[in-house]
């Protein structure tokens, strides 16, 4: 019998159903009477809609409903505007379309073919408007305004309460961070470095596209099956749009075929519900691969970074301007910009800072959350420039990082005390893994070489990231009459292994074997509230809530035993799945029988974790815990062609405590591989406002053929005092250092600095040409 042991690899609970092809994902599901929904999308990046006529589409046999702006504007039961931060999105376009692929209308029909046919019969007259296609253009005083005004929600996220759009401009938000005295800081510097780094928009490319089945019952109750990472946020947004209490919205989430941030906040759900309401039947919408590219992307960014340094390598001042292309709708871009701003100093003590981080509207598909959430953007600049500085000072890049890097108890840029900071351990681990040689930086630099034209190099990078705070996770754990457990949580199993870890935590707390534990699927009618499965927060937050719920069961058992057996509560303890009394031990099932007088009954344990801007110990806390990580790459570069090969990649993440070690290594290696794709080839390409590669042939994903021979995932354990068994979140950490680590390795190999992602052979070749000329 496999005990739910913490720190020992446990076979994941979702594996058997997945390897046999039986696991149900949304597109595998059907509901009786279900119609097929299809969406008509804008062909223009920016245009006014002069006229829409759906009458011909309605005549296509099998069509049950056509949804246009007329349906959402003139229905008292619908609030047409929504969005997680600002209410700048509508279910279908109202006055304008703001990006190619913006939903204009939708059809529900008895067959997918009929729906598709009907789309062609919807007549739309557009008046094209000048399109704003990059952040600099967007900031020009003469730029077309993408939103004339933006509606603010009546209540929103506590951490974004003060952030507002800048009226009359395309600036969606401007986050400012000032610390110390920036002018004095630069005056103290011996050297000043100024560089601009850029990175393109990319796409999550989960193999499962967004999908939704919606059913609106007579009386207005809404039932939605959704591919979402945050069912409770979707529930709230749907309740607001369709003007019903949240109790009248039920969101059910099957297994997700990947999320990576691209399935947070409403996506296809509002349009599917509106269609179902109008059709009077359940409707299923499954987005095509192309439509996913129009639905959500990762922010492209331009980052200007100016840093003042002492000759001994001490960082003294930084001025940084970050412009994130948030696309046509704010989505969660304002928080992405804030997180980029907070981490523009990297994991380093820099006393004087002036950081300005903007999310900027453009006529491109909306950008939102992507694994790494603003930090993979800022870290590209921070960690590339660290090596530029190290090279100029003839310092070992590892030493430069360790000299300035955060230690336990240091103050973060928010003036709060950092706890559980395994940064330097992570750096040392990756350096060791790739055979980092510190001595070579002291002499003149001799690059490793395999032949005359092939050079080898090594590079590293590190990072700090925060998790969303404040936030809420609630859990219910039920002890059944046979001493088995049922766990009710809103954490979405999207591949990260959360079901297994939650079972381990409850099982370890109560001494109950894994095989007797069931984690229920997510259904907002059944499971208690959880804010979101994102921000690498579930193990820490939901794990803690599950632990507290298990402890609540222990508390109840103690009360029962004290009452039924006359033993004082302080003499009762728990070990090996039994209730220990001074003279004897009781099985849980015995206690249950005693309590209920027959085989039956349930004990319900309740666990709630609410994080706030003060932690459990009363300290200021803008992040419930801190992610620290480092990565190191070894590359081989052909100096004649610029072609390069990643030979080895090492990733070390401070996981707090590895609850399920194989699961942790999967997260580390997996995030690193996503990082490799972003570093070396992923890029959404545009021609004007048109995406020219919204498919998986032209938008290239990393495959086995692109993998280095070795990826070394290393778990560093610096226990967090607030986490369950010391654990922290780890989902995003390993991705963030990858691109700068590779760029730094390429510099080490051939002495050229790539500042523009992705790092392509052509760019290296051109840089080599320039260097040699």
């Amino acid at each position, binding site marked *: 019998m496999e005990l739910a042991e913490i720190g020992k690899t446990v076979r994941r609970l979702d594996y058997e159903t997945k*390897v046999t092809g039986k*696991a149900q994902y949304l597109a595998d599901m059907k509901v009786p009477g279900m119609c097929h929904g299809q969406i008509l999308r804008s062909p223009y990046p920016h245009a006014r809609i002069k006229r829409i006529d759906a009458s011909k589409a309605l005549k296509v046999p099998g069509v049950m409903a056509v949804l246009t702006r007329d349906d959402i504007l003139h229905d008292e039961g619908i609030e047409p505007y929504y969005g997680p931060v600002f209410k700048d999105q509508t279910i279908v376009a109202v006055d304008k379309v703001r990006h190619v692929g913006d939903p204009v209308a939708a059809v529900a029909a008895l067959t997918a073919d009929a729906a598709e046919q009907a789309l062609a019969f919807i007549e739309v007259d557009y008046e094209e408007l000048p399109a704003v296609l990059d952040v600099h253009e967007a900031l020009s005083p003469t730029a077309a305004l993408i939103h004339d005004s933006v509606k603010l929600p009546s209540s929103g996220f506590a951490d974004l309460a003060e952030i507002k759009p800048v009226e009359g401009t395309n600036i969606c938000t401007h986050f400012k961070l000032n610390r110390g005295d920036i002018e004095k800081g630069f005056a103290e510097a011996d050297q000043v470095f100024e560089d601009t780094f850029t990175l393109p928009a990319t796409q999550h490319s989960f193999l499962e596209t967004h999908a939704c089945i919606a059913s609106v019952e007579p009386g207005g109750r809404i039932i939605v099956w959704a591919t979402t990472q945050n069912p409770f946020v979707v529930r709230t947004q749907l309740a607001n749009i369709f003007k019903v209490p949240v109790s009248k919205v039920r969101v059910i989430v099957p297994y997700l075929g990947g999320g990576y941030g691209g399935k947070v906040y409403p996506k296809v759900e509002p349009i599917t519900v509106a269609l179902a309401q109008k059709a009077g039947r359940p409707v299923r919408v499954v987005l095509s691969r192309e439509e996913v590219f129009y639905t959500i992307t990762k922010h492209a960014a331009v980052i200007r970074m100016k840093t003042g340094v002492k000759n001994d390598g001490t960082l003294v001042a930084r001025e940084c301007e970050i412009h994130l292309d948030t696309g046509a709708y704010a989505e969660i871009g304002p928080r992405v910009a804030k997180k980029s701003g907070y981490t523009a100093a990297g994991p380093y003590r820099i006393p004087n800072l002036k950081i300005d981080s903007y999310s900027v509207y453009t006529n491109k598909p909306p950008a939102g959350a992507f694994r790494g959430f603003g930090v993979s953007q800022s870290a590209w600049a921070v960690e590339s420039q660290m090596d530029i500085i190290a090279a100029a000072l003839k310092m070992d890049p590892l030493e430069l990082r360790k000299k300035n890097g955060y230690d336990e108890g240091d103050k973060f840029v928010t003036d709060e005390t950092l706890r559980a900071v395994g940064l330097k351990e992570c750096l040392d681990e990756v350096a060791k893994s790739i055979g980092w040689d510190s001595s070579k930086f002291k002499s003149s630099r001799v690059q490793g070489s395999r032949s005359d034209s092939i050079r080898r190099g090594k590079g590293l990078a590190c990072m700090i990231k925060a998790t969303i705070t404040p936030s809420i996770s609630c859990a219910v754990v039920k002890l059944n009459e046979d001493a088995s457990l049922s766990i009710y949580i809103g954490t979405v199993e999207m591949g990260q292994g959360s079901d297994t870890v939650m079972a381990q935590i409850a099982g370890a707390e109560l001494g109950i074997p894994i095989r007797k534990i069931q984690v229920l699927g997510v259904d907002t009618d059944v499971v208690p509230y959880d804010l979101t499965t994102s921000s690498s927060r579930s193990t820490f937050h939901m794990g803690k809530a599950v632990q507290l719920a298990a402890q609540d069961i222990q508390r109840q058992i103690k009360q029962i035993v004290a009452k039924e057996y006359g033993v004082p509560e302080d003499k009762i303890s728990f070990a090996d799945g039994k209730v220990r009394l001074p003279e004897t031990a009781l099985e849980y099932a015995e206690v249950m029988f005693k309590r209920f007088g027959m085989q039956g009954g349930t004990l319900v344990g309740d666990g709630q974790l609410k994080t706030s801007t003060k932690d459990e110990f009363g300290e200021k806390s803008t992040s419930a815990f801190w992610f620290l990580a480092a990565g190191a790459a070894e590359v081989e570069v052909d100096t004649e062609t610029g072609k390069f090969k990643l030979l080895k990649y090492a990733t070390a993440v401070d996981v707090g405590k590895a609850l399920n070690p194989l699961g942790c290594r999967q997260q580390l290696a997996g995030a690193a591989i996503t990082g490799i794709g972003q570093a070396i080839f992923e890029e959404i390409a545009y021609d004007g406002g048109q995406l020219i590669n919204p498919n998986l*042939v032209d938008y290239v994903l990393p*495959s086995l053929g692109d993998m280095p021979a070795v990826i070394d995932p290393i778990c560093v354990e610096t226990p967090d005092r607030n986490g369950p068994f010391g654990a922290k979140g780890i989902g995003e950490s390993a991705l963030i250092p990858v691109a700068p680590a590779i760029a730094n390795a390429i510099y080490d190999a051939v002495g050229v600095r790539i500042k523009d992602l992705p790092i392509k052979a052509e760019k290296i070749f051109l840089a080599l040409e320039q260097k040699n000329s």
Partner: protein
Amino acid sequence: MKRRTISLKVNGIEQNLEIEARTTLLDMVRDQLGLTGAKLGCDIQVCGACTLLVGGKPVSACSMLAADVDGCEVVTIEGLSEKNSLHPLQEAFMQFGALQCGYCTSGFILTAKALLDECPRPSEQQIRDYLAGNFCRCGCYQEIMQAVKEVSGK
């Protein structure tokens, strides 16, 4: 819509199916046979999530017509395990943690099966080449290599 009847063997069971001439193999197994282990990922034959075995060879079912498998033997992931025993590849994938979200898994396992049937002791490079047409966006490539190597060593 033109309809036709095809005869084929799916997971060892003889079937006569009436299909529309333009139905894809993937739609046929998913919608008509209820075998949903194979997934639609890219819809253009590059991601491997829809992989099925036809005559023992891996095909992208999203881009193959059902009419073209008339008379063939088709194996889906559901046909790989017997009631109480899993295929060694299924066991190895679980042991080495060769999956996370699971969406690509049936495609990887079937492609790996075709490789091992063709070449029981593949080199590391052969495994990489053969499986390079399947994407795992969660990034389990290293674990997938380990799992396939484990089975090929047996």
